[in-house]
């Protein structure tokens, strides 16, 4: 029906609602990357010698690598010498309370609805807000510290808990892992560090909100979460970005390490600027996320809702090394306008009776192109291991694309791998039915897509699920009919 096509057109032209820029002076190094820049970053952060050595080794390795080209995305070459690798808000002194935070900064968070202030903060959520590359405020520290939980910017952890950081940094994602991981290892500026002591079920959901701000500054976050024996933690990551004209590179590394009987739940709601209706601007999100179920009966669960970025290249993965360990990946990825996403997961089964579940829901609208790429590998020792993969795509309109590339490698005959995949469209009949009940087309689409994603949303912590649904609706306003 031509009316609906027209509506599709109209809706997909809507602009990013949350694009605005905060005017704060940033202390930025000149663009370019060399050993001196790395030494500068390390010195700024007063880092120990071993960390500088780690960075320099990573940099030397990065120089030997080529950008990967196997992913199904296209973009102009990134000029790594045009990126500034360090930027910090000028107010560098230590803050005792939120009152000392630049009001303009707080205002920015409020616009995004980020629960940073005491009034705004969601009950039970400790927030470590990252503004550009340096953490400016941390809440709930005392309460968490009393329980033995360490939750702080990784730069601070390097100072206060150097042995712990040194023990785990780069153990799950070595700097040799891939091009972007090597780059991140060389130049990462900040991020979060979490350590949950033995036997503790962390009662608070730990939350970090990222926000890319300073113009022309690459973002290289580094997150490291360690769950000791029989502990549990739920970690939330969320972000939106202000409007920009030029592309911004984001190459984060997230490492999760689970000991015996430990459980880590990592949830992401991601809404980086996807670019305008012509595909100009927008974030390049080249992220390496991996969890190691090192211990027996350990459990790592990734849940992600991705609506942003011009280009997404991301495969949150689990290495199931411990016997009876469990890996899960629940994903909703929405691409509209000219967004491109090549995303999925890797489940590497090494231990006996290891189990993994993959549920991927991809929604593609406008002229967007989306690829699910997943690897399930059953190693020689993966006796009686099992995987179940469900991979569903939904197409809105007739100019978008959805692709599925499942890779299965099995070296153990007793292992079982199941893969199910579907592709659907939103039906005219569904829209008509909703309209006939008085429901606007936009709301109808939001319902139908929400229903499609429910299996994933129900894995998110409650407040996050509400936020994700809202985000999906806002993003869809730009895309369908």
């Amino acid at each position, binding site marked *: 029906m031509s009316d609906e096509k027209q509506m599709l057109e109209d809706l997909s032209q809507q602009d990013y609602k949350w694009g605005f820029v905060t005017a704060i002076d940033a202390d930025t190094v000149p663009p370019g990357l060399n050993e001196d820049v790395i030494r500068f970053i390390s010195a700024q952060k007063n880092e120990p010698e071993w960390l500088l050595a780690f960075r320099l080794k990573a940099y030397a390795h990065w120089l030997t690598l080529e950008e990967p080209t196997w992913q199904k995305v296209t973009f102009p070459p990134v000029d790594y010498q045009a990126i500034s690798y360090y930027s910090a808000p000028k107010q560098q002194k230590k803050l005792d309370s939120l009152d000392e935070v630049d009001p303009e900064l707080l205002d920015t968070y409020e616009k995004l609805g980020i629960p940073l202030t005491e009034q705004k903060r969601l009950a039970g959520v400790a927030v470590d807000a990252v503004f550009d590359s340096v953490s400016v405020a941390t809440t709930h520290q005392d309460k968490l510290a009393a329980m033995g939980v360490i939750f702080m910017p990784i730069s601070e952890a390097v100072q206060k808990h150097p042995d712990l950081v040194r023990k785990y940094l780069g153990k799950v994602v070595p700097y040799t892992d891939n091009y972007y991981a090597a780059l991140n290892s060389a130049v990462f500026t900040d991020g979060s560090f979490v350590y949950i002591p033995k036997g503790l079920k962390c009662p608070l959901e730990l939350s970090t909100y990222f926000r890319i701000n300073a113009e022309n500054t690459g973002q290289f976050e580094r997150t490291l979460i360690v769950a000791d024996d029989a502990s549990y933690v739920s970690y939330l990551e969320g972000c939106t970005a202000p409007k920009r004209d030029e592309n911004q590179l984001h190459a984060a590394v997230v490492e999760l390490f689970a000991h015996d009987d430990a459980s880590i739940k990592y949830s992401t709601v991601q809404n980086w600027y996807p670019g305008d209706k012509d595909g100009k601007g927008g974030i390049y999100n080249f992220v390496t996320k991996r969890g190691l179920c090192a211990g027996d009966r350990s459990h790592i669960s990734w849940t992600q809702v991705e609506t942003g970025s011009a280009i997404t290249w991301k495969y949150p993965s689990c290495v199931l090394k411990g016997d009876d360990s469990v890996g899960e990946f629940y994903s909703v990825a929405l691409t509209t306008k000219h967004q491109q996403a090549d995303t999925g997961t890797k489940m590497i089964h090494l231990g006996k009776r290891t189990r993994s579940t993959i549920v991927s829901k991809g929604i593609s609208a406008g002229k967007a192109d989306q690829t699910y790429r997943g690897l399930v590998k059953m190693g020689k020792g993966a006796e009686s291991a099992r995987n179940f993969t469900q991979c569903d795509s939904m197409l809105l309109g007739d100019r978008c694309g959805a692709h599925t590339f499942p890779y299965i490698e099995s070296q153990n005959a007793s292992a079982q791998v199941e893969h199910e995949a579907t592709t659907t469209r939103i039906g005219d009949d569904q829209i008509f*039915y*909703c309209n*006939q*009940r*008085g429901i606007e087309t936009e709301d109808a689409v939001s*319902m139908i897509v929400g*229903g499609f994603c*429910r299996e994933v949303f129900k894995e998110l912590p409650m407040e996050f699920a509400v936020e994700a649904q809202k985000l999906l609706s806002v993003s869809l306003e730009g895309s369908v009919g």
Partner: protein
Amino acid sequence: MLTIRNLHAAVEGKEILKGIDLEIKPGEVHAIMGPNGSGKSTLSQVLAGNGNFEVTEGEILYKGSDLGELAVEERAREGIFLAFQYPVEIPGFSNAEFLRAAVNAHRKHRGESELDAFDFADFAKRKIELLDLDPKLMTRSVNAGFSGGEKKRNECLQMTLLEPTFAILDETDSGLDIDALKIVAKGVNSLRAPDRSFLIITHYQRLLEYVVPDYVHVLAAGRIVKSGGKELALELEDKGYGWLGAEFAEAVPGGGEG
């Protein structure tokens, strides 16, 4: 309430309705019967505003205004309700939330405050009991995995929740056993009011025993070929369509129903 004048409508270029005239006054219940392919469902889709059907000639006046000016959702909020012959499924989306969104869209249109989940649950509870529905249907996905009877009763539930001024039931009785049929009839009868009208499309006289119409029309080959009182339905049941003219010689009420 509703005036249809010389209505012609086509789907994919093929004319289905070939000049319908019909006047429905407030409080009246009209039944439309007729053999398969006569245009009964097309009429209901055109009234609801389905964009796949094109009005090529004639007009429809609803409450004195040209219905063709209104979008599907505007017609709905102005009180036109269609109980679908084949209710559509929305997997993963809860029936309760769907019904609440529909009710709130109507309330908003009337300038009333929207119901939150708790108020809506209270509001819906009585209607669910009236229709003898399993309350669990509310937590399941919209129509997904519902039996045929459950789907039809869910349509009826929506009708009683939305309290339309003009309700069209498109073969709501098809495929229902006698108990389910009685429940549907109860839903319709509970809504009968001096300012509310119904158009009941059916193959069978059966439903009309429980929902007694004021008028019965026979639709054939895109035209209303005969109109009468409730006794016409019984006559059709008795004699089939053949006595209405040679062109119906083959047609039997309820025959070839699919």
